[in-house]
């Protein structure tokens, strides 16, 4: 089997073309035969070439006549319904491939915006995002929130939520916990900075609640520094990247 990628064009070299024809014709006939056997169906192939005066056929002349007769017996509409020539066949393949590409783009887009969302949750600003990105980000947040609310409800139903470990000690007096733990009670939503006149909204600076959140040493692992985050961040200022997002929609 050849390992070279063959260019899909007419082979101008006569002997190369003849050699390719012999090989591929043999392979094609084999495939026709396999299809017939594996699936138990009737089929025939007719090949005209400049190298033979008579067409080469599968299975044999009689078999071809039989299949052709069977074909002709079918109503015209049935005959033509799945009939293709090279042009229509390639168009069909193009249509399928385009659908596949669209799907792949959509999946990749969702992955990208998910990444953006996590970066923004950990403090990256929204300034460099285009409208389309903001739109998709908002949509994704909605989707995620839907899931979260659903899950929260489920948990509330099955078991009342245990108080976070850092809460106030139970009635019998106990020594206070060693290190001052940040509790849920300390989390507060972003205090909106009062913008001075003339400033655009700069509320995307890393908010206090977030630093608390990140330092929360409950069950999860700690982030040591924002160095971690930086490695993973997309470069928002990469213009090509932004352009790609805004043009990501394929007709």
């Amino acid at each position, binding site marked *: 089997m050849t390992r070279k990628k063959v260019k*899909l064009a*007419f082979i101008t070299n006569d002997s190369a*073309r003849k050699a*390719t024809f012999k090989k591929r*014709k043999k392979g094609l006939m084999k*495939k026709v035969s396999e*299809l017939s*056997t*594996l*699936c*138990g*169906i009737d089929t*025939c*192939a*007719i*090949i*005209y*070439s400049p190298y033979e005066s008579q067409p080469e056929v599968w299975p044999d002349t009689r078999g*071809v006549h039989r299949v052709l007769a069977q*074909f002709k017996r079918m109503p015209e509409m049935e005959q033509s319904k799945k*009939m*293709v*020539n*090279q*042009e229509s*066949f390639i168009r069909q393949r*193009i249509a399928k*491939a385009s659908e*596949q590409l669209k799907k*792949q783009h*959509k999946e*990749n*887009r969702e*992955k990208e915006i998910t990444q953006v969302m*996590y970066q923004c*949750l950990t403090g990256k600003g929204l300034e460099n995002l*285009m*409208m389309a990105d*903001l*739109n998709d980000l*908002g*949509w994704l*947040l*909605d989707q995620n*929130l839907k899931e*979260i609310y659903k*899950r*929260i409800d489920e*948990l509330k139903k099955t078991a009342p939520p245990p108080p976070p470990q850092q809460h106030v000690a139970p009635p019998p007096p106990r020594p206070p916990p060693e290190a001052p733990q940040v509790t*849920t009670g300390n989390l507060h939503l972003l205090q909106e900075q009062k*913008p001075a006149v*003339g400033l655009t*909204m700069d509320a*995307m600076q890393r908010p206090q609640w*977030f630093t608390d*959140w990140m330092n929360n040493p409950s*069950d*999860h692992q700690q982030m040591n520094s924002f160095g971690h985050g930086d490695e*993973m961040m997309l470069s928002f200022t990469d213009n090509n990247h932004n352009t790609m*997002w805004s043009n990501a929609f394929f007709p």
Partner: protein
Amino acid sequence: MGRQKIKLAKIEIKNHLQVTFSKRRSGLFKKASELCTLCGVEIAIIVFSPAGKVFSFGNPNVESIIDRFFDLNPSVNPSSTAFHLLDAHRISSIRDLNMQLSQILNEIEVQRKRGEALEKMRKNSQIQNWWEAPVNELVFHDLEQLRDAMEELKKNVSKQMFEVTNPTTFFDSNNVGVFDQYETKPTQAFVNSSAAAALSNNFGYCHGFF
């Protein structure tokens, strides 16, 4: 792609048979099409499906090959000039279509690799960041925190969307629009932009690219 050795006998499981038929028929036509392009030969293949439908592939078309086989229209002279012109036109369309198909297939491969890379990054970052875990794996406490963080971000996204469409509109601490001080105000159409609507609705996101 199946690398298993196939037994050359009729497939017993009906479902497998259908799937095999579909894939192999498609592959067969693809090979036939390639043979036509590479070697310039004329072909017809007729295939009956397990359900009794008939598929056919023909170059230049199924009918002319069948007629030729039955030796009808022997007057068709393959070397006439008109024949060559039609041929040339058809061949050039097919070449363009093949190129178009190649481009799309290449792009699919590029995007597929990109998807793999993104997936890998995601997995890596999930190891380090608890909040990236699937929702079902989070404990109640973490869920609430994540919810709050996301709600906050959502608000900020709405704000930013408004900012992007109304870049020169800003408010002093009395919430008086700067434009109130001037004769001219932004036009109604501008003020009623969809971003403003999104800001007030909070849920006005369209699907965008999804």
